[in-house]
């Protein structure tokens, strides 16, 4: 285990050290201590390494992640795992606004609550939130899966494209063009796999599925005069 102490190491050095670890690295396990809410910790990683951040982080932790497994032993500030491509990000505590925004792939697990705009414009990432999510989550979400064991806030899935949303608790309100849909066997399979990988103690049958009514983003000839 390699330890980097942020009390004595500049952020640029922390990130360039981690970014230098590629597929052939033999230093697979890293620990970051004293993050103290700093911004942009462990961003742009591109190697199969494990990074444990011991404490809470500020804006944009684990952004643009590829391949790496990043574990935050604390809570995360706004924009955690933004635009993730692959790999895993696990947050033991809560996540602030727009967690997993625009993510293309990989798995984001939030063991506490996520606040507003979780998974906004997600493009293939899988997000599992053990607690609740705030308002405007999955706004314009294009693909991927958002799984919520708790409750969802206002306007879930507003202007949704093809992302799948699974909520176990209540949904305060659905956004424009987001509707409840039937849970088919293939969805239960997807959920089972995600819940297992996220270490979530819940049964797929307890969830409801929400998705796009596909009325907003398809061209409708009746609206031709509006263009």
């Amino acid at each position, binding site marked *: 285990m390699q330890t980097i102490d942020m009390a004595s190491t500049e952020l640029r050095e922390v990130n360039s050290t981690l970014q230098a670890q590629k597929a052939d690295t033999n230093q697979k396990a890293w620990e970051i201590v004293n993050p*103290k*809410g700093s911004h942009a910790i462990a961003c742009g990683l591109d190697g199969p390494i494990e990074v444990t951040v011991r404490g*809470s982080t500020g804006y944009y932790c684990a952004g643009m992640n590829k391949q790496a497994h990043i574990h935050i032993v604390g*809570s995360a*500030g*706004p924009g955690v795992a933004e635009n993730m491509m692959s790999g895993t990000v696990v947050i033991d505590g*809560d996540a*602030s606004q727009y967690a997993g925004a625009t993510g293309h792939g990989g798995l984001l697990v939030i063991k506490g609550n996520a606040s*507003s705009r979780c998974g906004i414009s997600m493009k293939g990432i899988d997000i599992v939130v053990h607690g609740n999510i705030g308002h405007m989550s999955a706004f314009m979400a294009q693909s991927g899966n958002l799984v919520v064991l708790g409750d969802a806030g206002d306007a879930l899935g507003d202007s949704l494209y093809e992302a799948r949303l699974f909520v176990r608790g209540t949904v305060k309100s659905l956004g424009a063009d987001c509707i409840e849909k039937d849970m088919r066997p293939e969805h239960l399979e997807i959920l089972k796999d995600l819940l297992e990988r996220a270490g979530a103690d819940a049964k797929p049958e307890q969830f409801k599925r929400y998705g796009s009514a596909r009325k907003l983003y398809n061209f409708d000839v009746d609206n031709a005069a509006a263009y």
Partner: protein
Amino acid sequence: MCGIVGLFLKDKSLEPKLGSMLTDMLITMTDRGPDSAGIAIYGRDEDSNTKLTVQSGDPAEDFADLDKALSEATNTQVSMRIKDTHAVLEVSDDHADDVRKALAELRPGIRVMSVGDIIEIYKEVGLPKDVAERFELAEMSGSHGIGHTRMATESAVTTMGAHPFSTGSDQCLVHNGSLSNHNSLRRKLKRDGIVFETDNDSEVAAAYLTNKMNHGSNLGEALESSLDDLDGFFTFVVGTKDGFGVVRDPIACKPAVMAETDQYVAFGSEYRALVNLPGIEHARVWEPEPATVYFWEH
């Protein structure tokens, strides 16, 4: 973007350290607001005096023998402590209005930052670190305090445009965000007799709350109604003589983190501002919900 910090102490033994804790938090928020900085501190109510914190662009001239001149003009004892561009005048409660009137006549260049039993406000243009040093903020003690680092969007970078804004006795407000209906609201409040010092949108929010409280609302109720009447982006932290409140608009774009222990309630625009508080590793840390009023009273 702006930075907000706030600290409401439950444990009296921390009171001598309030200034140093808040200063540390304020400086951490420098990159959210390097234009100007300010702090409101609530001390102990040990006497029946009113404190006026005043500011001048020309303190050498304006503060020269000001206490003597005011004492003579109002036939009462006025004491003065000068701190850089600010001075705290103290006078018995029943002469406070006379002193304020005399002040406007004798030294028209002086601006009143705050009036109240215990509040003192210090604010200036410049880096938070420099502002804190000029006013020796770290030396101050008190029961609660609020600080702000400003990155101006809606009005000029001036001393009067810096936060906190105080529009009523022992009241203050700091704001991160921008209001879109402040002009129409300002006109309404003016008709209600409220006097404005600036064109700043945040001053309108402060005056709105003052007006509500003048009409019988408590801090919590005033904050509750602000959610209906104020349009725009806001995270507000407000102080009263014995209270401390937080509210965010329903969209809640402007960041906010709170922490509570047996010793204190703390607010920061970011968690970074809270990391050096005692016992933070075991504090309850949470993000205040949108359109939800939080307030504490001593």
